[in-house]
């Protein structure tokens, strides 16, 4: 079944016709693809070092200084002028990433006090710990989007599963789960996170897990309603008459036809996932200290009002990211709207 159904082709066509959404998708995809290679774009190690001592890839492997002909058996500080001279002595050269800072590189040679203004070296300035804002932005963007994607995927799987079971079987199963969801949805997520922070050091996975426990409910209601609608269609009845089991009916007949609402919902769900992580980081209950994140950048902007480039940068990036996703969502919604063609 490689053949694309005409329905899919028509949807793709409608999607592309929404110029704004289509361009947003392209920009987002480009940005995401670029930031996936954040280590190559912004790093405090050179990409390639070539000298008489050999060919090195410091981004991929770690070397000792002695490998380059230095004195210490520890990893060299690649940004140190001493290292540059060492390479030069051996008739070598090195290629640096576009931004020669990683998200956690502390610039010791700042002219003034941190946070420093944007200049030729730090294009977007540095934060209050003398770390390059642009480098942190690239890494922060990546972690936000990855978190959003993971959370959306997990929420979708759980939400669709629970919603399908509720909608298809109805009755007591539906009633029981619905009551459970009402109670579960009433739990204060923020307090749970604060409690969690007291017990363990919250990292990416802890946050993802805890948020996934709650965010699936956004989809569950939509899927349940769709399945309730679809299960009364004659083709579902026909499948039962053919002798199909509940599982086959659900997977083959009900879910694919109930997916439209789900797919339409996904970009918006991703949007809220990203905002949640950002706000947690902003409040200080998010990713461990030192991690690059959009929320942490915003918090820095708030704490250093005298350095407006921090807050402004954070705001523009976050606002653009969320706007791109909303435009994408709108285009997806158009594509799945059957009445769109007739207007």
């Amino acid at each position: 079944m490689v053949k694309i159904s005409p329905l899919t082709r028509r949807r793709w066509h409608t999607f592309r016709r929404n110029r704004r959404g289509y361009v947003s998708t392209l920009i987002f995809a480009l940005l995401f693809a670029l930031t996936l290679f954040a280590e190559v774009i912004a790093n405090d190690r050179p990409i390639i070092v070539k000298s008489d001592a050999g060919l090195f890839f410091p981004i991929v492997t770690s070397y000792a200084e002695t490998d380059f002909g230095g004195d210490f058996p520890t990893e060299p500080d690649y940004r140190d002028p001493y290292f540059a001279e060492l390479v030069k002595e051996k008739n070598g050269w090195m290629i640096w990433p576009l931004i020669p800072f990683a998200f956690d590189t502390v610039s010791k040679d700042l002219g003034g006090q941190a946070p420093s203004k944007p200049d030729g070296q730090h294009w977007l300035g540095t934060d209050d710990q003398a770390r390059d804002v642009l480098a942190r932005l690239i890494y922060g963007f990546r972690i936000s989007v990855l978190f959003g994607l993971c959370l959306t995927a997990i929420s979708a799987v759980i939400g669709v599963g629970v919603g399908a079971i509720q909608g298809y079987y109805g009755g007591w199963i539906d009633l029981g789960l619905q009551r459970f969801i009402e109670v579960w949805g009433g739990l204060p997520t923020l307090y749970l996170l604060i409690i969690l922070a007291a017990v363990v050091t919250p990292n990416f996975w802890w946050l993802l897990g805890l948020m996934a426990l709650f965010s699936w409910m956004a989809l569950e209601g939509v899927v349940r309603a769709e399945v309730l609608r679809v299960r009364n269609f004659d083709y579902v009845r026909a499948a039962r008459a053919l002798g199909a089991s509940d599982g086959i009916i659900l997977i083959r007949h009900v879910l694919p036809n109930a997916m439209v609402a789900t797919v339409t919902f996904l970009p918006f769900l991703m949007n809220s996932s990203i905002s949640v992580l950002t706000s947690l980081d902003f409040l200080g209950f998010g990713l461990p200290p030192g991690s690059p994140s959009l929320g942490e950048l915003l918090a820095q902007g708030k704490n250093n009002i005298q350095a407006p480039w921090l807050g402004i940068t954070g705001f523009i990036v976050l606002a653009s990211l969320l706007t791109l996703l909303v435009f994408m969502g709108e285009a997806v919604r158009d594509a799945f709207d059957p009445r769109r063609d007739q207007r």
Partner: protein
Amino acid sequence: MSVLLDIQNLRIQFPGVDVPAVSGLDLQISAGETLALVGESGSGKSVSALAALRLLPKSAAVSGSITLAGVDMLTAPEALLRDVRGTKAAIIFQEPMTALNPLHTVERQVGETLQQKYRLTGPTLRARIIELLSEVGIDAPETRLASFPHQLSGGQRQRVMIAAALAGDPDLLIADEPTTALDVTLQVQILALLKALQTKRGMGLLLITHDLNVVRRMADRVIVMQRGLAVEEGTAAGVMQHPQHAYTQALIAAEPSGAPAPVPADADSVLEARDVKVWFPIKKGVLRRTVGYLKGVDGISLSLKAGETLGVVGESGSGKSTLGYALIGLLAAQGVISIADVDLSRLSGRALRPHRRHFQIVFQDPYGALNPRLAVGDLIGEGLDLHKLEPTAAGRDAKIVAVMREVGLDPEMRHRYPHEFSGGQRQRIAIARALILQPRIIVLDEPTSALDRSVQAQVIALLRDLQAKHGIAYVFISHDLAVVRAMSHRILVMRHGKIVEEGSAEAIFTNPQASYTRLLLEASKA
């Protein structure tokens, strides 16, 4: 007589559709005249009527000229259009349940126009509403003012719709399939009401229908439409008796006729049902105690031989579809149902599954009965996969091709998706899906009522052929007596979940015993 509506060279084209919906229609209606616009679905008749009131979406390209009561409808500003709609011409739609706002009372539905056009308020408004409701034949209209649409019966809803349309005292009434969604006995009443109202008020009536019986009964003149073109025009009597155009002839000839092949004398019994009951509990209160039962099917016994068709007739709500579902185990039922000596009522859902290949079902709506996401070949082959009848891909494909040929579909089309097929073709797909399992019984739940007449005749012929060839027994559920007569050996008339009358098709149609059966027969002949 003055011309109320004058349409010249009307052309309508929707964006993204190559074929124009209407290509060059001319139409005139005078006061007191009934013009019927006849054609199959998609022939452009409803679209033309909507265009007459400028009710089409803005994206539709409309050209030509439409003059309604002296107003050029295509160029008139929106404010003028609002004045014209309702007072010069009003429209009633096919499905009153969706055409009425479910959250508005009868009083508001009917009073809306009165308030806007005549600025009536308070007691005068109420008095006028009551007057209109009694004019359309609603009993005790005072008690109905506060009712919501769902509290009314289908016939009452349609009457309220008509009252709302009459509120602006229109000179022209456009009725878009006004009786199609109603039971036969109600159809007769509503048509009589429309006729009486027209005579009394001297209105022009533009009647859109696909039902030639309605045309014979109601129309002075008739225009036959096919694919956006008027192919024939004339007096109703003239066109009906001496149709000139081939399409009109085909339409008239497509009235179902003929009889099924006789049942072989030595045919085995395939279905035996005794005292079948489907009761739906009515639950009330916090504890959901069962306070009573809605008796969908209430103690019905029947039997069926191989190659025999049992027609089940009744109005909507009589329990005929419920009975069909119960017979093939789609609804839990009490009583004994044995198919080929296996008592289904004793089997659980899981144990029933392997037996399901022996009894299949074809539904009314060919659009809802096919999963839009599966290619036609996969739809038809699904039963083979589920019962593991054809382990090899080649054998499966061969069977699908064979069964598609048998129901008159081009096997090359098996990789296409349902939306690329017409209603009649889809119904053939649904029949193929049932047929591929070589069932002993097929329950046909109104299989032709969503189809145009000419397609209906083809599907009936196909079903009769298949029966004669494979000796399949049919349970044929329908409210359309003409179709039932063309299909059935025996007939069972149902009302309120019980059997009213039972007998051979011949006996029921020539010598009905129960008064209810006689009523049905008279209504269908009208």
